[in-house]
């Protein structure tokens, strides 16, 4: 009888809904949503003049508004100080997503002979503490590393994304004063594009300002030998200006760009708060070769199962030390030009540019 099916369907739907993992509601409620207090729409009866004035005001608002689309409202090009609560919520979200990935991998393993190569890595990652935490307004980027693999997690209001990479071979050392990129990923959130880069910072790198293909400058977070930055939009990373104990060097990541160095940020550009590596921090063992990735919603592609498709190795090049020093007013550090290979696999729903600028 159709009534019996409908009745069973009601019960099944309720049972499925009851199966929603605990903690999901608390995480949703923990977000900062910032409701509007005033309706921005003008009253209908206000007349043509008022409407015209409102239109002008709207144009003005658009002109003066932040560059970030609504999905990334509150994002800042320089890292911001995060409250303990924000960091705790972000770490909790990321740990929960990793646990979910691990659970899925375990289920997959139970259905097939052998253990998926990603499962041990996920188990290790779930047990580690973050090596880097980058906050930009309401958004928090966390990097976990277990030696053989690392996971990157961006979270914010209405937004959470985990990407996992595992190393196919032992990473090489990161040259002192240099940055070695693990990958650059372009993806979207609610139709709005964003890009993030992750890599290793060699010994002595205290801070790094990234110059994008659209000319904008992003201050990266450098912690514990790791480097991370992300930005709304699809602009590519062109170069990085590193501050070391001995001065400033510029490292380029796109060999197709013009030979001269991009303009450094204007004088007085604020430094990131609490985000630089103390001088003399240890250099990590080198760059990873990512071979797996996860979707923003947390499902995972296998690590090491395929040869990365579409990866690009970018060449590093040092801008003229005189030019960089002249523009920034700082002494240029001495560096050597080198190159190294790396690889990254595109995340599902996005593209990745892997490689190093060593």
């Amino acid at each position, binding site marked *: 009888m159709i009534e019996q099916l409908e009745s069973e369907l009601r019960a099944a739907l309720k049972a499925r809904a009851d199966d929603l993992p605990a903690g999901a509601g608390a*995480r949703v409620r923990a977000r900062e949503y910032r409701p509007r207090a005033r309706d921005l729409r003008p009253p209908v009866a206000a007349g043509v003049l008022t409407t015209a004035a409102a239109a002008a005001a709207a144009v003005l608002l658009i002109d003066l508004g932040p560059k970030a689309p609504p999905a990334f409202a509150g994002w800042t090009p320089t890292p911001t100080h995060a409250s303990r609560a924000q960091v705790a919520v972000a770490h909790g979200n990321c740990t929960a997503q990793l646990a979910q990935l691990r659970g899925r991998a375990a289920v997959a393993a139970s259905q097939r002979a052998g253990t998926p190569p990603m499962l041990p890595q996920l188990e290790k990652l779930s047990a580690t503490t973050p090596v880097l935490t980058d906050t930009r307004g309401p958004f928090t980027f966390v990097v976990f590393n277990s030696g053989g693999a690392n996971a990157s997690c961006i979270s914010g209001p209405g937004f959470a994304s985990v990407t996992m990479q595992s190393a196919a071979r032992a990473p090489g050392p990161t040259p002192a004063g240099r940055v070695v990129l693990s990958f650059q990923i372009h993806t979207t959130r609610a139709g709005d594009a964003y890009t993030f880069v992750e890599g290793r910072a060699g010994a002595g790198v205290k801070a790094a300002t990234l110059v994008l293909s659209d000319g904008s400058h992003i201050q990266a977070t450098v912690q514990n030998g790791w480097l991370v930055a992300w930005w709304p939009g699809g602009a590519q990373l062109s170069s990085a200006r590193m501050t070391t104990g001995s001065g400033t060097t510029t490292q380029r990541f796109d060999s197709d760009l013009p030979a001269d160095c991009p303009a450094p940020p204007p004088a007085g550009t604020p430094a990131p708060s609490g985000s630089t590596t103390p001088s003399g921090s240890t250099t990590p063992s080198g760059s990873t070769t990512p071979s797996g990735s996860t979707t923003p*919603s947390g499902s995972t592609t296998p690590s090491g199962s395929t040869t990365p498709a579409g990866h690009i190795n970018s060449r590093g090049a040092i801008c003229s030390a005189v030019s960089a020093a002249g523009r920034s007013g700082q002494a240029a550090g001495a560096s050597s030009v080198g190159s190294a290979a790396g690889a990254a696999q595109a995340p599902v729903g996005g593209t990745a540019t892997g490689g190093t600028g060593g």
Partner: protein
Amino acid sequence: MRIRPAPSTRTQRAKADFEQFVTASSDALLRTAYLVVWDAVEAEDLVQECLLAVARRWPRVRRMEHPHAYARRVLVNLALDGTQRRTRRRQELVGEEAAALAAAPDEASARRLDAVGIRAELIEVLGTLPPRQRTVLVLRYFEDLTEAQVAELLGCSVGTVKSSASRGLTRLQAALSPDISLSTKEPSR
């Protein structure tokens, strides 16, 4: 003379009202989202996205008779709008292990529900229905909306809702064990 509250007071009141709304509605929205998108992480993302959208329109939404119904409409439309993106994402998963992952997430819950007979089978089949078809069933049989209310929420005709529900029920029925097979008719209204 009506005295306008100071902006700070107004902001605080809007925030307090909204927090109250989130506290009261978030669990129900999450459950609906979970059933519509069939993935817990995706459901969380979706509800947060929905609440952000509601927050942006809060001055109007708070004056509505049923703010929750409005939020549910936003949620369902966001879910269906994102279906193509999510499907593409799943298709781009690489290798057989990814295929196993895509197929496996609901095994655990299905096993837990095995004791209640056909419910586990129904849940398994529900997960394979096209999102729009599943959404119609969720709104009809979980949210207990009428066909007219579902049609209004989805912006389609009542006939479309009827045919979607009918196709969904037929698929569910076909997947059930022979000993509990049921007749195929139009769903009751």
